[in-house]
C-alpha cells in the first residue's frame, strides 16, 4: 500500500470542477513533485487530502485512512500550505507551543524544530515582524513538529531567498532519505527538477502524467534531435518524406521522435551535409508545457 493514495478524487465548487477523477500514489522514501499551472487543482487536491475540504467524490488517504481518521494526525502528516498564516501577535515559539500541546508532542520538540529551520534566535519575536521567508520556515517547523511520516509542501519555496531554497532542497532530500514520503507542489519547475524523484503532472484538475522524473521528462514522443544542414530546405523535405516533421529553431531545426543517428541516416541517404547534429533533451519545462497545454513564453 502506498503511503499516500488518491483514488478518483473529484471536487466541484459550484459550476467549477476543480479536480476530476484524480488518482495517484506517493511512495515512502521518495520526493514526489506535484506540478501543474495555476488553477490546475493542486492546492484543492492537497486540501482534500488533509480533510480541509470535502471531496465531491473519491478518496484521499494516508496508509488507507482519511486524515481525520488518523490517531495522531500531526505525527503522521506534516503540511505546509501555500497560505500558511499565523496570529501576528503571537511569537513563533508560542505558535509552536500551541501546536505541540494540541498534537501532544514533547515540549522539547519546539526548540528542536526552531533550531532545525534556523529560527531559534527569532523564536520569541512576534510573527508580524517576520519576513515572508521566516514565515515559510515557521510553517515548515510546524510541519516537522510531530516528526511525521509524510510531508505535504504546497509551494514551499515561496518567499525563500536562494540560500533558503537550497536549504529546502536539502531538507526534503533528507526527509526522503529517512524513509518519509514527501509530496511537494510547486510551479517553480527548475526547483522541483533538482529535488524530486517522481512527478505528478495535472492540468484542469486531471492527471496528465505520473512517474519517475526521467520517464516523464522523456515525454511521450521519444527523443528529440537538433540538427542544422547546409541545405535546410532539402533536409526538411527529406525528413518529411521519411514521415517526420522538423520545427525551425533559429539557424537549426528540432526533430521530435528521432535520435541523432536516425536523423543522420536520413540526411546521408539524401546526400545532405550536416553542420550540427546533437541530441536535445526536453527540459522539465518543455515536458510540463506539452503535458499541460501551456506555453513557455
Amino acid at each position, binding site marked *: 500500500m502506498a503511503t499516500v493514495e488518491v483514488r478518483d478524487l473529484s471536487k466541484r465548487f459550484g459550476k467549477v470542477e476543480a479536480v476530476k477523477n484524480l488518482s495517484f500514489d506517493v511512495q515512502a522514501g521518495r520526493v514526489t513533485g506535484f506540478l501543474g499551472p495555476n488553477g490546475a487543482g493542486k492546492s484543492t487536491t492537497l486540501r482534500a487530502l488533509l480533510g480541509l475540504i470535502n471531496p465531491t467524490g473519491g478518496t484521499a488517504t494516508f496508509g488507507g485512512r482519511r486524515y481525520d481518521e488518523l490517531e495522531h494526525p500531526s505525527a503522521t502528516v506534516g503540511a505546509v500550505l501555500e*497560505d500558511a*498564516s499565523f496570529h501576528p501577535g503571537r511569537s513563533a515559539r*508560542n505558535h509552536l507551543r500551541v501546536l505541540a500541546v494540541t498534537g501532544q508532542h514533547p515540549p522539547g520538540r519546539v526548540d528542536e524544530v526552531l533550531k532545525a529551520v534556523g529560527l531559534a534566535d527569532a523564536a520569541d519575536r512576534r510573527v508580524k515582524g517576520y519576513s515572508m521567508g521566516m514565515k515559510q520556515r515557521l510553517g515548515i517547523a510546524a510541519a516537522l513538529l510531530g516528526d511525521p511520516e509524510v510531508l505535504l509542501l504546497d509551494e514551499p519555496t515561496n518567499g525563500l531567498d536562494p540560500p533558503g531554497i537550497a536549504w529546502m532542497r536539502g531538507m526534503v532530500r533528507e526527509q526522503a532519505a529517512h524513509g518519509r514520503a514527501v509530496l511537494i507542489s510547486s510551479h517553480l519547475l527548475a526547483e522541483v527538477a533538482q529535488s524530486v524523484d517522481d512527478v505528478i503532472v495535472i492540468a484542469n484538475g486531471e492527471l496528465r502524467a505520473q512517474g519517475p522524473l526521467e520517464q516523464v521528462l522523456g515525454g511521450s514522443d521519444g527523443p528529440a534531435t537538433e540538427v542544422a544542414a547546409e541545405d535546410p530546405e532539402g533536409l526538411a523535405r527529406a525528413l518529411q518524406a521519411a514521415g517526420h516533421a522538423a520545427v525551425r529553431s533559429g539557424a537549426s531545426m528540432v526533430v521530435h521522435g528521432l535520435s541523432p543517428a536516425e536523423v543522420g541516416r536520413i540526411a546521408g541517404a539524401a546526400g545532405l551535409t550536416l553542420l550540427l547534429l546533437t541530441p536535445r533533451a526536453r527540459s522539465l519545462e518543455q515536458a510540463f508545457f506539452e503535458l499541460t497545454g501551456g506555453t513557455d513564453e
Partner: protein
Amino acid sequence: MKALLEAELLKLRTTRTFAALIGTAIGISLLVLVLSTTLSDYDREQDVRATFAGDFTGLFILLLGAMGIAGEWRHRTITSTVLAAPDRLKLIVAKTISYAVAGVVVSFVVTSLLILVGTVILSARDQTTIDFAAVVDIMWRNLIVAAYLGALGVCVGAIVRSQVAAIVGLLIFSLVVEFTLFGLAPDVAKYMPFNGAPTGLQDVTFDDGETEFLDPGVAGLVMFGWVAVLFAAGAVLLRRRDLT
C-alpha cells in the same frame, strides 16, 4: 479533549487581545462603579446588588468568545488549527468550554475587584452595603452568566465567521436591539440572549420597578436553550465548510 482545552487556553494567554479586552472591561467597570458609588445614595441592598452585578465584563467576554473563533478566519489560522485538530466537533466543543472557563476566571477577578472597591467606598460614605451571603450570591450568578456569554460568543463567531461582522453584530444586537425591545416589547426582551435572560438569572431589579425579568430558574433554561441552538448551528457550519 484535554489537550485541545489546554491549547485553546494557551492561545488566549499568548496574545495581547485577551489582556487588552479584559483590561478595558475592568477599567470601564471600575470607572462606572466608582462614579456610581461615589455620587449616588444607596439605601436599599437591592440597588447595591444591581451595581455590583451590572458590570461591563459580560459584553467583553462575549466579544472575546466571538473573536476566539472568528479571529481564526481573520488571521487564516483556522487551517493550522483544523490540521492539528481535524475533528471539528471536538474543536468547537473545546473552544466553547475554553471561553466559558475564561469568562468565569475574568468574571471572578472583576466581580471581586468591584465588590471590594464598591464596599470600601460605600462604607466610607456610610451607605448600605451587602453581607457575605449576598456577595456569594452575586458571585455565582455572575460566574454562570460569564461562562454563558463566553460560550455564546464562540457560537456566534462560528456562525458569522467574519470577525468584524460578529463584533459589530453583537454590539448592535446587545446594546441597541435588545434595549430597544425592552422599551417596545418587554415580554419578548426578557427572553433575549445577551441581556434579557442573563439579567433574569442575576436576579436584580432596577429603579423603574416596571421592568420584569424571568425567574432565575427559567432564565437559566432559556440561556441553556440559546447556547444549545447556536452551538448546534455553529458546529454544523464549521463541519460543513470547506477551508479553501
